[in-house]
């Protein structure tokens, strides 16, 4: 501001050399830029970075919200390793991620390839398949899902029609995981749209050339589609893995916030929430949160490190 005032205030003076003007203008632009960024910056430092640092401190303390935190060093992390429910929650989440994410991506890729070959009504289909991704994480869908899978719910009724009597899945510890995997697979729309965009980028000449050489559809898929799609696949896989690790709302609603029956829906974030806001062990919960951050960080790092072995960027000599 002062700079601008000075230049305009001394209007009679000769115009300064262009380089100085440019510098001043650039400085003013920088300030304006930061001014426009400030809502986001304030939000980031006050609502994200600040609380994250605070939770890093709390992870090394005992803190029950009522009294001031007391330093316990690595105590929380030692307790974590002895906590059978922590291991259970890690197991439940790992099962969910390792089964749910690949199935979801396979479904997404399959539908994307079908859509890529259709011409009529493509937009309509794309919207219809994408819709569950928009609403899938919502509370209402979790409630609907629960209603579908209880005793005498629609799934049970269909099962009985075909002569099976599976009973409600919600109350059966062996069936809750398939129920959650179905819920995530049903939301394949988001990765599907990305796959669809990726498929459009694959040059048609490659397929034509392969056809001329006598390659069948499976060979074309394995030798052309998959390698050409590998950057998109890498992106989707990473995104969906991180997304799956964070499952919370649906698990909270379907299990009534308990992680039951018999701990079969005790997802990591749900257990973290319970430790923090039901047992009021904020230090412990913060420690869990940081373990999750580190694990997700390692997974991401592994993805990036390994990508050079399996992700093919066109134009690269390989």
């Amino acid at each position, binding site marked *: 501001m002062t700079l601008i005032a000075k230049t305009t205030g001394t209007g009679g003076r000769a115009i300064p050399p262009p380089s100085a003007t440019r510098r001043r203008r650039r400085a003013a632009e920088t300030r304006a830029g930061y001014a426009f960024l400030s809502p986001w910056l304030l939000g980031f430092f006050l609502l994200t970075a600040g609380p994250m640092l605070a939770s890093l401190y709390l992870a090394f303390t005992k803190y029950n919200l009522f*009294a001031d935190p007391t330093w316990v060093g690595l105590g929380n992390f030692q307790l974590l390793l002895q906590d059978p429910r922590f291991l259970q929650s890690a197991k439940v989440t790992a099962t969910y991620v390792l089964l749910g994410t690949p199935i979801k991506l396979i479904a997404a890729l399959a539908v994307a390839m079908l859509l890529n070959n259709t011409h009529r009504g493509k937009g309509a289909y794309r919207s219809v398949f994408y819709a569950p991704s928009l609403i899938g994480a919502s509370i209402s869908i979790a409630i609907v899902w629960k209603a579908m899978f209880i005793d005498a719910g629609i799934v049970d009724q269909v099962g009985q029609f075909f002569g099976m009597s599976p009973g409600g899945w919600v*109350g059966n510890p062996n069936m809750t995981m398939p129920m959650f995997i179905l819920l995530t697979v049903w939301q394949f729309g988001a990765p599907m749209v990305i796959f669809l965009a990726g498929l459009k980028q694959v040059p048609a000449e490659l397929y034509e050339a392969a056809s001329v050489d006598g390659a069948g559809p499976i060979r074309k898929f394995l030798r052309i589609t998959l390698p050409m799609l590998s950057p998109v696949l890498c992106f989707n896989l990473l995104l969906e893995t991180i997304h799956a690790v964070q499952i919370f709302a649906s698990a909270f609603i379907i299990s009534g916030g308990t992680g039951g029956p018999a701990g079969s829906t005790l997802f990591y974030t749900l257990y973290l929430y319970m430790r923090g806001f039901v*047992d009021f062990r904020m230090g412990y919960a913060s420690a869990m949160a940081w373990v999750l951050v580190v694990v997700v960080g390692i997974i991401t790092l592994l993805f990036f490190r390994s990508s050079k072995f399996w992700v093919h960027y066109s134009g690269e000599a390989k």
Partner: protein
Amino acid sequence: MKRHTLKVIGIAAAAALALTACSGGGGSTSNPKKTAGGVETGPVTITMTWWGNDDRASRYKQAIALFNKKYPDITVQISFADFSTYWSTRATEAAGRALPDVMQTDMAYLREYSSNGHLLDMTPYIGSTIDLSGFDQSLVKAGNLDGKQIAIPTSTNTLALFYNPDLLKQVGVDPPAKDYTWADFNTFLAKVSDAGQKTAGGQQIYGGTDYATTFWFFLQWLVQEGKTPFKDDGSLGFKEQDMKDFLSLTADLRKAKQDYPFARTTQVLPKTGFSMNEATAEISWDNFLAAYVSESGNPNIAMMPVPTGKDGKKSMFFKPSMLLSAGANTKHPQAAAALINFLLTEPEVGKIFGTSKGVPGAQAQRDAMQLKPGSVDASVVAYEKAVKDQVTAQVPIPVKGFGSIEADYKRLGEDLSYGKITIDAFVKEWFAGAAISTQ
């Protein structure tokens, strides 16, 4: 035209702001009025919160409307939630020293709040603003921790065995005899389940839920065994063997699948097998009668005392419930105290709530309840009167971390019902958790 309209709106908005500013200023500078209760208040706004369902909310709203007739200067902003959400929110508020002015509290969480000074000591207001002359004094004592009156219970609950006479008739089993023991109760539960009767909806009728997986029933049993569940120093007054013994009571029922299946319990939530008319009996707090009658649609649901202990006594206790507290951070302690007094002692409020929060501690409220013979309220009051001779024990005062250890017990009970863990593993894990939660 458009610009003109905007200008008018702008001026109107500015005027409105100025007006409210003026009236606000006027309010705060005007002399505090002496109102009916002798409370000095200007126009103040206080917040009040509770847990419970819509039914309770509408009763609270009626009570607060009455309060506003008497204290027009006190505006009460209300909010409510279900039990578990309620406590998560309060804990977060406590961390920010921003608790509501008036809040419903429970014995289970009182210690956390008391030991760190989050609740207002109401001692100075008792006798002046809060009139407890017609109040059950043992109840008042229950809210006094470490010499500070941080809460006052609204009412009492005691445990009862609810049974559904119509369902029992269908099954062809009589309700337990008056002096039934825990073993007799087991026989009864098994007999009903073995009858193999079905509801109209095709669900099997069971005797009842596995009672051994509820923490409060364990405490009742411990009291009958002559133990003090929680000692004054915050330590536990029972050993692993005690818990093993209690859990073993229903081991045979669990093995023979004669108890209401847990897989079904989780699916009928928030109802229970009993209120779904799929189980014939259930132990619970006596103020549940209203909910049981409305959920099951059966007005004939009856109550009887809990099973008898080994010394031939039932050793029941009155649990102080629905305590009212004020946040220590309140800026209007007088107004908060006035509201607490009104809710606790006003006869009309007693009429509004009936026994939905338990039997009121204030004599005036008990007298004001219009007890139609055969009504839910009449049954609950009659029950507490009838069992008075059997209420010979002191209620176990929950230790710090009670909420967690109770939740742990319930969760492990679930695992036990599914056969995922043994009784020994249950007890071991519970004590390990309790060691951390209660310290």
